[in-house]
């Protein structure tokens, strides 16, 4: 099989994370010969989603082959339920089948047998409805490879309990906690935030450069509750968040409202691991070659005639050549990383599987909850709760992701938050309680490799790993920057034609002609 693989490419991409995959798609899209490889047997690297079996393999690998996952450490897995189902049969209800539906008692064996129904993210992120990834998916037509669900609610932690944050206009009206006067003040302030513009710093914000966002909100006369909503829930900030950063975050939130559903956010069906795969699909459709299970052994640059440099990659006794190498930071040989990335703060993460949502709701919720920091050292903790409708887990369960900056280690950093929203005691799953039972948990730290890194050579481009942020904005931005270096002056992921727009000319013409049709005319054809 190996002999079928050509050896000369315009671009070789190593690693199938989000940044690498976007670059691969963009290069292939405009006709570059692309080889895209990954050393592991699946797509996504640290951005992958796993079913429960795949996740168990990952956990085992981190423990037994730490070199393979050098960016993941402090990994702690814990069960809160029995291995096997209880011995005695639950009450037979064969008589009339009308017995009270008892709450399912989960055991570890259920997770094993239903492993395929899980899609658990290593890097869980949301898309802003008008953020760069959504716009890119639409403009490139890659959106056809994925489906999304709207985040149904945004929660916050106020007075020691969970509270919904009013997002839509209707929500704001419905909130009795906020008086008419307060509403008017809030709206005035939000309007000036929407008018904020980085380039032409308007008067409103010109003196706020060195002050905190909280000071600004206070100055605007917002009451403590409103300050809490805007600062923690909408801007995702802390007491010390700089004013302009808060304004930018708020604006992003507001601008994405009203496009799809009640909140500004979208979640990819079957998990975030689908995102890089969509870009890989486009790369393949335009002729990109794919190899998984393909580690690389060496990377060298060689100057050939006329001062042109080629990159030579050794992989499984094959010598591959390219004009540009795009490589994930974790795969990249150290001598190509010219400067140590700036001091960054590692990421603390946790995943929980529970038997119910953190806050009851009529329909299955999809929740973003930003937990304000419980102590001064920390940032807010981002909580994402997803249910069976997202393809993340079997019916009756929820998957909850917690992310924050690392202070001590993942477990110490996040357990205090988890205990506020889950019952972590194990014990009887059928007992009624106000908090869902935690059935399983995983804590881990990830090195923050999201800072841009330069290779010291024009033909080797290093891709960052996932960051702790809520969205994909940094990854999309970095991919575009790398693409511009490889293909200067070329459009970034121009719209791929729909299949019905491809007209085949019979005869000698070797390839298809792409014809763009009026979007509106599409429906009339059938």
């Amino acid at each position: 099989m190996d002999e079928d693989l050509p050896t000369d490419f315009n671009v070789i991409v190593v690693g199938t994370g989000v940044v690498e995959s976007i670059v691969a798609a963009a290069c292939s899209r405009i006709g570059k010969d692309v080889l895209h490889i990954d050393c592991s047997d699946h797509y996504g690297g640290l951005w992958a989603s796993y079913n429960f079996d795949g996740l168990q393999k990952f956990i085992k690998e981190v423990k037994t082959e730490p070199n393979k996952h050098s960016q993941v450490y402090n990994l702690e897995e814990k069960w809160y339920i029995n291995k096997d189902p209880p011995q005695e049969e639950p009450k037979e209800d064969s008589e009339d089948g009308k017995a009270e539906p008892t709450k399912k008692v989960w055991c570890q064996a259920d997770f094993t047998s239903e492993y395929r129904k899980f899609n658990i993210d290593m890097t869980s992120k949301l898309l802003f409805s008008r953020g760069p990834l959504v716009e890119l998916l639409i403009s490139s037509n890659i959106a056809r490879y994925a489906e999304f669900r709207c985040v149904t609610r945004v929660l916050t932690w106020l007075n020691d309990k969970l509270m919904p944050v009013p997002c839509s206009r209707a929500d704001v009206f419905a909130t009795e906690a906020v008086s008419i006067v307060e509403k008017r003040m809030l709206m005035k302030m939000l309007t000036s935030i929407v008018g904020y513009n980085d380039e032409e710093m308007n008067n409103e914000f010109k003196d706020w450069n060195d002050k905190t966002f909280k000071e600004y909100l206070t100055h605007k006369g917002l009451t403590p509750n409103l300050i809490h909503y805007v600062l923690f829930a909408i801007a995702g900030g802390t007491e010390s968040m700089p004013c302009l950063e808060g304004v930018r975050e708020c604006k992003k939130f507001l601008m994405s409202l009203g496009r799809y559903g009640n909140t500004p956010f979208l979640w990819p069906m079957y998990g975030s691991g689908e995102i890089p795969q969509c870009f890989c699909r486009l790369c393949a459709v335009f002729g990109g070659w794919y190899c998984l299970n393909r580690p690389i052994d060496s990377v060298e640059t060689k100057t050939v005639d006329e001062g042109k440099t080629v990159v030579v990659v050794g992989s499984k006794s094959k010598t591959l050549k390219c004009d540009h190498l795009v490589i994930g930071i974790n795969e990249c040989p150290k001598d190509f990383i010219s400067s140590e990335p700036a001091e960054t703060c590692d990421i603390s993460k946790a995943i929980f599987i529970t038997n119910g949502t953190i806050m009851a709701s009529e329909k299955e919720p999809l929740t973003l909850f930003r937990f304000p920091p419980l102590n001064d050292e920390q940032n807010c903790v981002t909580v994402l709760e997803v249910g069976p409708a997202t393809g993340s887990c079997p019916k009756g369960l929820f998957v909850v992701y917690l992310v924050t900056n690392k202070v001590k280690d993942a477990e110490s950093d996040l357990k205090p938050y988890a205990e506020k929203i889950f019952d972590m005691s194990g014990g009887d799953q059928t007992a009624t309680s106000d908090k869902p039972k935690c059935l399983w948990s995983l804590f881990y730290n990830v090195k923050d490799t999201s800072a841009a890194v330069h290779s010291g050579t024009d033909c080797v481009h290093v891709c960052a790993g996932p960051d702790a942020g809520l969205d994909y904005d940094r990854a999309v931005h970095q991919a575009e920057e790398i693409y511009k270096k490889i293909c200067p002056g070329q459009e970034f992921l121009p719209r791929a034609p729909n299949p019905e727009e491809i007209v085949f000319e019979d005869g000698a013409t070797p390839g298809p002609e792409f014809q763009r049709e009026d979007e509106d005319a599409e429906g009339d054809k059938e």
Partner: protein
Amino acid sequence: MAKTYDYLFKLLLIGDSGVGKTSILFRFSEDAFNISFISTIGIDFKIRTIDLDGKKVKLQIWDTAGQERFRTITTAYYRGSMGIMLVYDVTNEKSFENIKNWIRNIEENASADVEKMILGNKCDLDAKRQVSKERGEQLAVEYQIKFVETSAKDSLNVEFAFYTLARDIKAKMEKKQEASNPPGGRTGAHQLRANEQQRKPTSWLSRCSVL
């Protein structure tokens, strides 16, 4: 825009490289077979709407985009698929043996109740045949999957295969609907489109500030 169909089925083509998947897709969607360029271009998917018992059934048939070559098909490819054509080449023993591996791959990644069908393609090349029709039938019995030999080149049984698969999916769906099961619980998920009807965020705000 009025819906021009009653059902939309997502179908996949799976099988080793070179067995004729893209050719089968072309034969069915364009009624064409052109040896010179088919394998050189990337086909995403093709659409053909067929008539089944008075219902318009829109078939969206996805090609592997070459990712079958080194078995790197994305898990995303399988999402939401309702029917899969497993294709081997009757002149290539290896491609026949690999059907079992592809079935395993489907079991791992596709929905559990996906309809399947096995196609033994290139049956026009009788002189080069390595896999007898009987062996194909036997394999199909083993997995309880329907089977037919096809030729994309001579347009043999290609229509029949797609109609059969589509009819089986439709029957399964109608049975499910009778049992009043909501279809797959996938309601509420959506694809992003450029012309999505949009409310401007500014209007959201300005209407609020009239308070």
